[in-house]
């Protein structure tokens, strides 16, 4: 067993009202970042897990997202990176 660091992104699903993303976009516009077209605010979670290999660590992380870390009704998740730690 080795130790892996799995980085996860959890974001509000496209099409679902994201008032936090909109508020941040408005603030960026106010600061002069006129080129900002859209902002989505989500979560970045790092899970450190022991597993036989990287693909097992990723499989575990996926199951964690499905069961707890993301809400399947309104959020999407992606495994951003798996690295040995």
């Amino acid at each position, binding site marked *: 067993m080795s130790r892996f660091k799995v980085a996860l992104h959890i974001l509000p699903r496209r099409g679902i*009202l994201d008032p936090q993303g909109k508020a941040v976009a408005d603030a960026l516009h106010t600061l002069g970042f006129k080129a900002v077209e859209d902002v989505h605010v989500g979560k970045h979670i790092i899970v450190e897990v022991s597993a036989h290999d990287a693909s097992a660590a990723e499989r575990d992380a996926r199951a964690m997202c499905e069961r707890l870390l993301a809400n399947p009704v309104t959020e999407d998740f992606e495994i951003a990176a798996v690295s040995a730690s």
Partner: protein
Amino acid sequence: MKFGIVTFPGSNCDYDAYHAVADVLGEDAVYLWHKEHDLAGSDIVILPGGFSYGDYLRPGAIARFSPIMHEVIAHAKRGGPVLGICNGFQIACEAGLLPGVLLRNESLRFVSEPVRLRVENNDTLFTNRYEVGQLLTMPVAHGDGRYTADDETLDRLEGEGQVVLRYIHSPADADEYWSPNGSMRAIAGIVSTAGNVLGLMPHPERAMDALLGSSDGVGVFESVLARVAA
């Protein structure tokens, strides 16, 4: 009739619920610590308001895995009544007892104020003491109350009469729906398919005495008592 009131770390309406049941209604009430493994003979379970686990991850997401929830879910599956108020509604959704989810208020502001509600269905375990179209006043106090589900789920909820309470703008125009949090279709409260689980963002347990602003919440408790005792 015995009410079991679940206390999670961070619950803060459990005392209000206890007061409503024990002092106003004169029924038995017992607190159920979230680490317990049985409901102590409760006939009706209340998941109270608050900020269980500090709303970490998502409101209700972690409370849903507390040991007592195993028993609450089994109770609900047997047809036992469960009343999820505010954070309790969020927990019931996370636990899969009710469809959908409660997201951050559209305004991004915490709302704490009395709201006007319209009874949409009185043929339920929790609303049979009201009339359809009856207007109620109850307080809300939440930052994450925007009921959200996909269109198919919303259509089904409406079609099956599972939408029991909606927010309205003012009693003068009771057909004009409006919501303090951006809820889809102005939904304030829904029941499960089997009808034995009610989730609502407004606080009936804080609307038990006209002296404190409203006694419109009493009907929720009397409704369930009338049906369960029958």
